[in-house]
């Protein structure tokens, strides 16, 4: 049972990480291959601030904001040439631009901050919850992720801009014609994707470990989630994250870490074969 709970917590973090890549794709027609590096930026900033003896809460918040602004910066500069194109051309150009950015950021992190790692190892006693022994750290990460997700949902369902973002995902031209500023909504979405990725990375750093070289891993994980969950569905992303989190934790526990990547990719391939639209994609 403990394994399942660990898996669910991992899944919640995956959800935070992936929802950004999914939303940016659904809204902007752009896959951000530097998404993991954006997350790492948040973690690194938090780590540097903690080293500089800032309060961990301050460090965490600033780190999350840094990730958000990095993503926003990419939207306003790097991705502009891609936005001027449509469909496949936009997707391909953005793939190359963000891939380049991911290499540049990775290089910068490992060259400039090779030994900076965020690991507070906050005192994490184990407690019993309903007969299961869990680390309080896991509970804290789970609660943080759930709370963040709740805020996201409240934004999407409860605000005008949130509703506009949902309608752009369904029909961009329709949104323009209703008077929605799609460019601005896209920037907001990139910013949000950065914030969410930052929360995931800082959470990971505070309660387990985050290194400067973990960007590619984060990106690939969120891409797998996007494939399994369907690239246009928030609920799908959420469920896929939980599923992959549990699969990951169970395999690490019973088989060994070396197989988990293969297993995750196998789940993705199986999804593509059985339900190419993803678990919960909209029916046509």
């Amino acid at each position, binding site marked *: 049972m403990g394994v399942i709970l660990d898996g669910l917590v991992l899944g919640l973090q995956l959800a935070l990480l992936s929802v950004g890549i999914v939303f940016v794709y659904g809204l902007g027609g752009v896959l951000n291959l530097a998404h993991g590096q954006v997350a790492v930026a948040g973690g690194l900033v938090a780590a540097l601030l903690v080293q500089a003896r800032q309060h961990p809460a301050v460090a965490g918040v600033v780190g999350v904001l840094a990730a958000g602004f990095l993503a926003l910066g990419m939207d306003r500069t790097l991705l502009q040439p891609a936005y001027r194109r449509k469909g496949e051309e936009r997707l391909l150009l953005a793939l190359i631009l963000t891939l380049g950015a991911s290499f540049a950021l990775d290089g910068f992190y490992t060259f400039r901050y090779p030994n900076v790692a965020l690991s507070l190892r906050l005192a994490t006693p184990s407690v019993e919850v309903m007969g299961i022994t869990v680390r309080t750290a896991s509970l804290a990460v789970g609660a943080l992720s759930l709370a963040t997700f709740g805020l996201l949902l409240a934004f999407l369902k409860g605000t*005008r801009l949130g*509703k*506009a973002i949902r*309608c752009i995902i*369904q*029909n961009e*031209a*329709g*949104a*323009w*014609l*209703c*008077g*929605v*500023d*799609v*460019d601005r909504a896209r920037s907001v979405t990139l910013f949000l994707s950065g914030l969410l990725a930052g929360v995931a990375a800082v959470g990971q750093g505070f309660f387990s470990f985050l290194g400067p070289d973990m960007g590619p891993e984060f990106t690939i994980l969120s891409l797998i989630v996007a494939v399994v969950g369907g690239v246009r569905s928030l609920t799908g992303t959420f469920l896929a994250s939980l599923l992959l989190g549990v699969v990951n934790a169970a395999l690490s526990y019973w088989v060994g870490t070396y197989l988990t990547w293969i297993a995750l990719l196998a789940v993705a391939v199986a999804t593509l074969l059985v339900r190419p639209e993803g678990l919960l994609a*909209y029916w046509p």
Partner: protein
Amino acid sequence: MLDVHDLWAGYGDVAAVRGVSLRVAEGEATAVLGPNGAGKTTLFRALVGLVRPRRGRVRFEGRSLEGLRPHQVVRRGIAYVAAERELFPQLTVLENLELGAYARPDGLRERLAAVFDLFPRLAERKSQRAGTLSGGEQQMLAIARALMGKPKLLLLDEPSTGLAPRLVAELYRRLDLLRRQGVTILLAEQQVGAALSLCSRVYVLKNGTLAFEGDSSDLRGSSHLHSAYLGGA
């Protein structure tokens, strides 16, 4: 009200609209006729900023629309109902209408009542998803959503596409009602008869240029003009 002068627009290397000038007078209904590929849709898309014109100028109520993005054009009071309707298929009829009022959220309730009055069918279907409506109902919803923004000028791109003749007649009766309520209309159409019944002013586009402009009575009375420009339709 709308004044278009020497407008050029298109995609890639091809200019689909080549030097079109036209005027739309306030309170009138004006038609742009022409076969498929004549440039009607590109003209409309250029007017609302979905396509950036290459040359020429567009003035609306005396102010230039140059460089405006579509959402800004909408806020100036021009609504565009595309031939593809561009609805939000997963949202309900009511949600689609509410999004139509995105730029002007005030007075939502009165405007909802007004469009339900014009299209009672939509009131019956208001909690149904837009994607499940019939073609005629989708067209009504697209027009109703455009009206939710309280436009001064309504651009309609081939509103009769895919509708049975009986529905076309009904749709045009509603459009006539709208015009009499003071909404200025510019419409692109292939169904010449329907368009002429509503519009007083007519432009005919052929291969991206204007082939004819005049009053609809000129066109109605002349089988020669008809066959020359509209293939005898």
